[in-house]
């Protein structure tokens, strides 16, 4: 399943400080949307509000609406736990559970819903998810070994396998390649291209070539200065953002004349 996300008038606050101001954006299903912008412009913060992971940070709160195929994630009575099981997330640093085997890592999210599944079904799901993350051939002989023994790139793909094992509607990626070498990065980018056949993918990246390579649409975020809130400056087809942006600041940023 793949669902559309509609964000309207979203503001994010840390205590009294407004970190992100008035974002309106629509993320299409079965497509890759990239968020680019300088450090501290609020793009990671905004990404986290899409599955309510910002609530982990004390004092963080949101005003506005995020609709997942029409259902407001911030409506009264919506449990953030349910939201997160529908909208998966991959983090900047690979974070497989060090105390679990590769197999258990893949099944970690599925086991949460306390669904007791027969071993054969579990095996099938492990294989399907690891194949989905292009990792199966590398780990099929050591599924019972700890996930922390894999290389950084493999760990990140394991995290992606873990995220897709719960069959989410959307996958959020917060700079998923920033801790990886170019070859592992390429492997993840290929994977992102395959993932968009089934999921809505949103990726935050500092690497503009990466945004240009993997995304269909790109959103550029910026801040006016320190202490000011981050804003969505421009959102358009990736080709437009990089070749013919409407805003001067977008052009400056993508052409490297920033700051």
């Amino acid at each position, binding site marked *: 399943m793949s669902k559309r996300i509609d964000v309207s008038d979203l503001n994010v606050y840390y205590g009294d400080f407004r970190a992100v101001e008035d974002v309106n954006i629509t993320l299409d299903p079965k497509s890759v949307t990239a968020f680019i912008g300088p450090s501290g412009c609020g793009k990671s913060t905004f990404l986290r509000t899409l*599955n309510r*992971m910002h609530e*982990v940070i*004390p004092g963080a709160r949101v005003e506005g609406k995020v609709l997942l195929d029409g259902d407001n994630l911030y409506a009264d009575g919506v449990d953030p*736990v*349910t*939201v*997160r*099981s*529908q909208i*998966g*997330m991959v*983090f900047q*640093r690979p*974070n*497989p*559970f*060090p*105390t*679990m*085997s590769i197999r258990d890592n893949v099944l*970690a*999210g599925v086991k*949460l*819903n306390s669904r007791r599944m027969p071993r054969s079904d579990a095996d099938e799901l492990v294989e399907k998810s690891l194949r989905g993350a292009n990792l199966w051939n590398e780990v099929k002989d050591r599924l019972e070994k*700890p996930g*922390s*023994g894999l290389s950084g790139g493999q760990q990140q793909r394991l*995290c992606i396998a*873990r*995220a897709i094992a*719960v069959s989410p509607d959307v996958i959020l990626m917060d700079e998923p390649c920033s801790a990886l070498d170019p070859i592992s990065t390429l492997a993840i980018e290929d994977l992102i291209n395959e993932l968009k056949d089934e999921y809505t993918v949103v990726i935050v990246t500092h690497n503009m070539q990466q945004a240009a390579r993997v995304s269909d649409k790109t959103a550029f975020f910026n801040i006016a200065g320190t202490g000011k809130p981050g804003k969505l400056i421009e959102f358009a087809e990736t080709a437009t953002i990089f070749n013919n942006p409407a805003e001067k600041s977008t052009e400056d940023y993508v052409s490297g004349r920033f700051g």
Partner: protein
Amino acid sequence: MSTTKLAPAKGAGPERSGRIGDKVFSGAALGAGALIVTVLFAVALFLIVQALPTFTANPADITGGEGFFAYIFPIVIGTLIAATIALLIATPIGVAVALFISHYAPRSLARGLGYVVDLLAAIPSVVYGAWGASFLASQLKGPYAWLADNLGWIPIFGGPASGTGKTILTAGIVLAVMVLPIIASLTREIFLQAPMLHQEAALALGATRWEMIRMAVLPFARGGIISAVMLGLGRALGETMAVALVLSSGPLIASLIRSGNQTIAAEIALNFPEAFGLRMHELIAAGLVLFVITLAVNMVARWIINRHKEFSGAN
């Protein structure tokens, strides 16, 4: 930044002055390590030498008249019973308190609670002993009588219940209160160190707070919890004053709610002032036995921790 100040201005030659710091530090570390081993070895040697006459003495001369083993066995069991009760009570409560402070309580409350738990550890054991003997024991008379009436068919609750409440169970409960702050504050530190990275990973998969704790906090803290429990056990095994005041001792019995049983530490403390000659060697031998038990417990704990090294996240 003294190293930069001392470094020669022109280029860094092979003999940089930072090396002196390294040498001093490694010497100091080696010395400290050697000192610990020496002290441990000296204590062990003292215990063995002083205990030796007990093992060579005529069995009839040993307290009880049936040799050292018959003398020491009941109080070893008594010690283990008291420590086990203490840990059975204190471990779950201590871990729960620590989890509450580290992951559930609002920040302002957590800080205050943390201080209170640390303060509990600062109360002298004689105070706990006095509290246990004068207050807790009499409060427990009723429950003990109830246990004897209703669960008396289980040997550990066999009646008639103690009229004073000064039983090994009371002693165990007092010990539990004493080791609780050790377990709670050590495990709290470990829980606070659980990597945010993995906690977020669990939450992002749709884990509730408790599921997140089970996936990302408890497995990480496993070794730390075992260490904390072992430190608590060390205190429970060696605690003297509280047991001496709370327990009205006697021969080894199965029932936990009757007067009876004794622990090694309390046995030594109560008898040492009047002991001389063979009796003193006997008590030191008892101390040696306690030393060996503690050592064995620590080694087992280390073994348990090491067994799961591959999955500890240290690699």
